């Protein structure tokens, strides 16, 4: 009796050990989450689609390469802020509650991110901005600073745009700005530029609201003030209205328009139609898939993006800056996670500030961020481009 009981006990123990090993072998490490606070509910915006493509392409590459932290897969969680700041704040609160969610990728709408700054720092949530241009997103006094940027700044954009206007021979500028944090950010950038450059002047600064149905009156006011070129800060909705209105005027009344990149966050050519060809319209950009100046990186990108989204060439990429920014941002983040060796966000924040280099799609980041500089791109990465009507592709103006 005693003998048999012992045998039974031994057998049970043996089975238990086997099962535990088997379970350990088959059970995957828990994933590490990345959030994306996207403006999905925004009707015309395509920048959220572009950023999503960039994120997922990068995640796929990383996961196929063995994930992070020695085999943990990355996983994306998307929340919709509909471009409304209040919703964005709520989303951050919800992201913060998710275990092993290491960072949130920020979208196109600067006002949303600006409104999120407090809650981000309260919850110690890392935000990597892939589009929003307002300077304040990264340039604020909070320490440690949880916001990083793989995108441009309004001050750089304004500088590039006004330089371009000057190249076109315009010295007097009319400025159109939205009554939002982004608009004010640009106003500040223009003011700073004008302080440093006395050769150009702004004859009229005009403010509009998101949702305005016509900007013609404001354009006329700007033109009548003697402006030779219009500096436009707008997204695709108001931008397309403006282009169509200007195109409807007699040719001699159509001023060249130098636009911030908000318009490229939607299917702009589709919204303007032929009207775009009637107007001298240029837009500031950070990256063009047509340049092919880092062919090996581009090839690697096309391989994955082609498999996941059927993207074969630059024509297939909507709102290209969003794709490129997000793609590089995720790779940099993955490197930081590995470098931190944990999912603890303060650790990763520190790791991001301390990455040496990263060889990215847009450029060779050396280093991407420092404690003082949370912007991965530089002024010299910016250029002016022009929409190609047939497919909406943006080509560099040389």
């Amino acid at each position, binding site marked *: 009796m005693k003998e048999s009981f012992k045998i039974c006990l031994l057998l049970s123990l043996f089975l238990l050990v086997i099962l535990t090993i088997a379970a350990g072998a088959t059970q995957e490490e828990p994933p590490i989450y990345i959030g994306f606070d996207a403006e999905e509910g925004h009707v015309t915006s395509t920048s959220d689609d572009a950023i999503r493509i960039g994120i997922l392409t990068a995640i796929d590459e990383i996961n196929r390469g063995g994930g992070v932290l020695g085999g943990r897969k990355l996983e994306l969680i998307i929340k919709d802020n*509909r471009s409304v700041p209040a919703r964005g704040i709520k989303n951050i609160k919800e992201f913060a509650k998710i275990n092993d969610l290491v960072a949130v990728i920020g979208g196109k709408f600067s006002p*949303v991110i600006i409104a999120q700054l407090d809650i981000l720092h309260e919850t110690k949530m890392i935000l990597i901005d892939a589009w929003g241009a307002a300077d304040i997103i990264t340039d604020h006094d909070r320490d440690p600073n949880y916001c990083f940027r793989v995108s441009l700044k309004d001050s750089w954009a304004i500088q590039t745009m006004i330089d371009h206007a000057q190249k076109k021979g315009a010295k007097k500028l009319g400025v159109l700005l939205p009554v939002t944090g982004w608009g004010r950010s640009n106003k500040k950038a223009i003011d700073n530029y004008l302080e440093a450059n006395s050769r150009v002047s702004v004859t009229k600064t005009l403010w509009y*609201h*998101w*949702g305005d149905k016509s900007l013609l009156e404001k354009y006329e006011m700007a033109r009548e003030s003697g402006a030779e070129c219009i500096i436009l800060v707008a997204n695709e909705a108001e931008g397309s209205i403006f282009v169509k209105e200007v195109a409807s005027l007699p040719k001699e009344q159509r001023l060249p328009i130098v636009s911030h990149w908000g318009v490229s966050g939607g299917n702009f050519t589709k919204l303007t139609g032929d009207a775009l060809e009637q107007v001298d319209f240029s837009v500031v950009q950070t990256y063009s898939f047509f340049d092919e100046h880092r062919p090996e990186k581009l090839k690697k990108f096309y391989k994955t993006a082609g498999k996941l989204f059927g993207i074969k060439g630059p024509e297939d990429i909507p709102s290209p800056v969003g794709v490129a920014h997000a793609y590089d941002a995720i790779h940099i983040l993955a490197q930081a996670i590995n470098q931190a060796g944990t999912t603890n966000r303060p650790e990763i924040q520190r790791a991001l500030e301390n990455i040496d280099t990263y060889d990215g799609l847009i450029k060779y980041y050396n280093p991407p961020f420092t404690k003082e500089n949370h912007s991965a791109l530089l002024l010299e990465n910016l250029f002016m481009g022009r929409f190609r009507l047939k497919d909406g592709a943006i080509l560099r103006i040389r």
Partner: protein
Amino acid sequence: MRLENLSQKITLLTVGITIAFTFILGLTSFSYIRSNLVEQISNDISQEALSFQAPIQSFLSELNHNIQSMSGNLLVVNALTDSVGRELYIVPFLKGYKTPLDIPFHLALLDFEGKPITPKQRLRTATSSNEALITTTISKEVSYAAIIKDNDTSSLLLAYPVFYGATGRAEGILVLEISLFEILSKIVNYDHTTDHYFLGLNQGSEPLMEFGVKSEKDFHSVHNPLNLPQELQELQLNIEYGESLAEALMPIKKVTRVYSVCGVFIFCMITLISRWAAKKITNPIISLSQIVNQVAKTGHPSAEFDTNQTGEVGVLAKSFKTMLSRLAEAQNSLESQVEERTKELLSEIEERIKTEKALLLSQREWENTFNSMNDIVTIQDEDMRIVKANRVAYDVFQVELGELEGKYCYEVFRGGNSPCSNCPELITINERETHGGTITNEKLGKIFYVTSSPILDENGEFTHIVHIAKDITKQKEIELKMAEAHQQAEAANMAKSEFLANMSHDIRTPMNGIIGMTRLALDTTLTPEQHNYLEKIKLSAEGLLGLLNDILDLSKIEAGQLLIENNNFSLPSLLDNTISMMTFAAQEKGLELILQSDALGESVFVKGDELRIRQILVNLIGNSIKFTEKGSVTLKVIPENRDDNQLGLHFMVIDTGVGIPADKQETIFSSFSQVNSSTTRKFGGTGLGLAISKQLVEMMGGRIWCESSEGRGAQFHFTVALEHGDEQKFRQPSEIISSTVKGLTILLVEDNEINRDIARFLLKKDRHRVIEAENGLKGLEILVEQDVDLILMDVQMPIMDGLTASTIIRASEKDSDLTQFSLPDSLPEKLLRQCKCRHIPIVAMTANAMEGDREKCLAAGMDNYLTKPFKPEQIKEMIADVIKSAPE
């Protein structure tokens, strides 16, 4: 309390009526005035309520409209997304709003979770915890309105969703908070020192705030729901406005008081006046009654009436006076009248004694008469009890004298216990009239005819019955025998008619076969010898048929069944046809046949029985030819003058034959008679022809006679009365014959095989398609399967006769119920389908040549009628006739 006194009664009545009238008048006018006043005040209150309601409504509506407009303002929308700079403009913008009437408010822009978008916006109530507010505005994207109750004051919370163009969704809430008390006090402006009304604002039935107090008594108010925009409608806000009626009803109270005081005064006045008036009326009456009382007691008035009084009492006094004097006069005259009457009575008694003596004498005479009557005479009382019986009665009933008196009539006459139901006496007793009837006394074996008459007194009052019974036993026996004889005679006659009808049918059927077949045989290729034989068979058969027809005619005439028809026809063609019919027979004997009708003039078209006239003519001419060896036979027609409007014709058939002896000239018109028996053998014939002719002529309103002497020829005369004919209605028979119808599908229903053969043969000659059936049922079965143009229907057949079959066909054509005919299962349905809304012509073929058969056939729905045996032309004519007149 009983009021014996008239004056008290009058007083009380007058006072009572006056008070009741005054009371009712007062009450009616009081309630009328009150209800009028209340109605007027109610109207005022409603009007007043409206004057408060209207500004509240317009205020809230305007407020609602303003907030709704603001929620769509671009500045407000922009503030939703402008996270940094919005405080700069949205706070002043919202603060800058001025409500109507400048009432303080709180206006805030909230995010999608109900939190104020800037911290500077203040609301008294927490919005982020207001689930209903957020769900309604953000999820349902519609406006939200609520009343927030906070201790002593209530606020209106009104929120509108703010739509963001880029998403097309509600992304924020514009919410207004405003104190209801502030609104109402501004609008109502209630002054507690001067205002006495009550005004309350309620949500549904729950009061929100009140101005003034509801008075406890006579409070009248109206509830009016506020008529608000749809967004605010669900708040169910309503106002109550009311006032106390106490003040308004003051005049009525005053009037009531005045009415009461006046009422008491009038009551006292009327009591006094009516008492005085009553006394005035009753005093003379009382004195009058005292006098009358005195007269009643003493018989004489002791006091004089005061006839000087005026008015009704004066008249009464005068009347009393006159009456009393008349009374005295009457007393005097009555005494003298009594004396006179006594004298008269005495003389009357003397007179009566004389009369009674005379009566006694006549009583004896009456007794003698009574007893010497030959019939049984009894006098009976009202109960039919015999009071007196005569001697004959005792003789007949063989009882002792005096035994009948006291017995009941029915005991004596019938030996019964009660009168029979048809007792004439009962009728006499009830109706006071003479009645008669027959009574049988089985015991005596006698039958009486009884007459009972009432005996009335001088005043016409019923006293007794005189009952006379006549012995009619022998008469009755004779009557009975006569009836029996009559019955036997009737039966014999019936049997004869039956026999004739049967014979007619039974003989005609084989005759049809013989004649028909002979005709068919004659149409085949024959040797001259065979042809001769068959020709003779045909002649004999036709002769036999003629004889048969004669017998039938005669029997019809005798039975009164032969009817004279009345059709339009052409007289010349009748005469021509008759002459040509007889020409062959005359020529065979070498006689000349002459027609003299020149005298006819214009009387060409006449109305009468063409067939029967021809029959007579053929008969007479045939006779003349028969009895004339050489010479001629002449037919002469002349018109005859008549008194009436009819057309008289006089026909004469004149021959040069053997003639008729004078003594036989009368008898030749009787049945079965020829001049002598040897004539029969020599000349043939039945002798029925003249008898029939005579009858026919008489039926046509004429007469027939003969003028002849033996050996010098004979002249037969007859006259007829016809009507003037109508040429329009005359139809040429030749027309029908000329248009023979051919190629029809004909259903031949006939049980006799030979007759079927003949008919089929005749029909096939005209290329008709013939379908045969051997009885009515078979015929119907064929009918449902084939379309038929015409049916030839025998009448007498086994299984189903022709009359029944025709009735069924006609019924199915009219879509009638066929269940009454016991037909096989599916037949009725098929029949209805086949025959519905059609009219298939049906021609009867019958050997029943008796009159009345035709009517039976037509009644069964048949279109026409052929008598067997028929000639080929007859059947052709009939088919053409029926097909042409068919409705199709």
